[in-house]
């Protein structure tokens, strides 16, 4: 990753700067360009669904924003701050950015939380402990405060009676709800969901989607979700991005994109998904 220039996201006409900006972001694995010059702004509080065929780079977008992957070009901004980069030495105001240090990453990524396809709960900790670990060790909450916060969030996701259960004692749907509570306990501004229901048995999908719906309704979180549930994307998202071969092939309000897709690829993808049921 090289030094870059990238403009601090300015307030748009509506008066708010985007919460997340991918500014000409490129990601390669060896010779394979997974994301090509990605340009994407996401407003504070916006719910964005990312759809697209397997291998189109959807997961990679989230992983870059969570700082799990380094990027090979461009700059990612979060809440008005460069995340993948930081201002170069003695460059105040010059706009020149150098790749972020570990320290800078730790400062900025606290604004982002992520829920994974395979939950990734800590198996040796109870549901409550899973939710307390980061607030205590990162935010410096007292154990009492962290316990209260964790218990409150676990009740919010419908697991108030499972605080002392270990992940191995919970169903997939319950584990995923613990994972959501665990991420929320850090009070992120942006939440990322990567196919959070695809590892679940069909009858457990609903309970997780219900929690996400509730989050969307009750909080002003910015939410970005990769999903194969087209029905949910349609109902929940403010905007849908269709990814194809590392580019956004089409983006728009769900009603437009699902009802009247302009791009041929989008049409093909949607009809294939519909056929699969």
């Amino acid at each position: 990753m090289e030094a870059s220039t990238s403009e601090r996201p300015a307030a748009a006409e509506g008066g708010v700067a985007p919460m997340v900006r991918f500014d000409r972001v490129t990601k390669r694995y060896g010779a394979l360009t997974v994301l090509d010059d990605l340009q994407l702004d996401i407003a504070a509080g916006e719910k964005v669904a990312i759809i697209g065929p397997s291998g189109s780079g959807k997961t990679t977008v989230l992983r870059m924003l969570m700082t799990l992957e380094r990027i090979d070009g461009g700059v990612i901004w979060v809440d008005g701050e460069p995340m993948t980069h930081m201002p170069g030495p003695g460059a105040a105001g010059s706009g020149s950015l150098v790749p972020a240090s570990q320290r800078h990453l730790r400062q900025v990524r606290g604004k982002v939380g992520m829920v994974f396809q395979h939950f990734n709960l800590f198996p040796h900790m109870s549901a409550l402990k899973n939710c307390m670990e980061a607030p205590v060790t990162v935010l410096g909450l007292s154990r009492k405060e962290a316990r209260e916060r964790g218990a409150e969030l676990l009740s919010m996701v419908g697991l108030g009676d499972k605080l002392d259960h270990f992940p191995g004692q919970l169903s997939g749907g319950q584990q995923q709800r613990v994972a959501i509570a665990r991420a929320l306990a850090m009070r992120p501004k942006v939440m990322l969901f990567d196919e959070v229901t695809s590892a679940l048995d069909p009858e457990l999908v609903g309970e997780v989607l219900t929690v996400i719906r509730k989050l969307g309704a009750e909080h002003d979180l910015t939410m970005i979700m990769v999903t194969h549930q087209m029905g949910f994307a349609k109902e929940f998202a403010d905007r849908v991005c269709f990814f194809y071969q590392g580019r956004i092939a089409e983006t728009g309000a769900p009603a437009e994109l699902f009802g009247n897709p302009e791009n041929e690829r989008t049409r093909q993808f949607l009809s294939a998904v519909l056929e699969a049921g």
Partner: protein
Amino acid sequence: MLWDWGYTWEILPVLAGAAIVTIEATLVGFVIAALLGLAFAILRMSPSAWVRLPVGGLVEFIRSTPLLIQIFFLFFVFPKFGVTLSAFTAGFLALGLHYSTYCSEVYRAGLENIPKGQWEASIALNLSPWVTFRDIIIPQAIPPVVPALGNYLVALFKETPLLSAIAVLELMQTAKILGSENFRYTEPMTLVGIFFLLLSLISAAGIRQVERWLKNRRG
């Protein structure tokens, strides 16, 4: 007379005292091996090649040179550099250092078995590398390798007679002295064998106990 009971009873207390020294050297040596081995294993995972490679080289070097040479080195050569150690200290340090390299391999296997998702969840929650190791990785990596560590505890224990080479008054050295003083080796050497057998059995049982405890703790 093949076996002299009177002599046996006479030397038993002396050997029991020496057994304490053997046990002390084993325990102190193993604590060093276990902690230093963990440190080596973690340093060998460092993202920086400046840390990873020298530590890896050191571990390989210690592991592939004989323990006896390391014992001699600490005891006879270190004083030339102004570090004078008692025989006992040189002994348990050498044991600990040598076995730390085996333990480090054991830990490495344990650490490599932690799913990638655990590291990623730790990053996503913004845990520091230190907290990630302390609270997430190590508590999951160690229980499965306790049996392997236990084997090295017993192996280390069985190598303590090497300390007789620098005249630490552990079991072997004491038995040798008793034998040469009384011109009878049968009883002291047999008793030493029995001590080692008993203590090996006891520690093996202890390790199984720890394993069971670790398993139950998870529910």
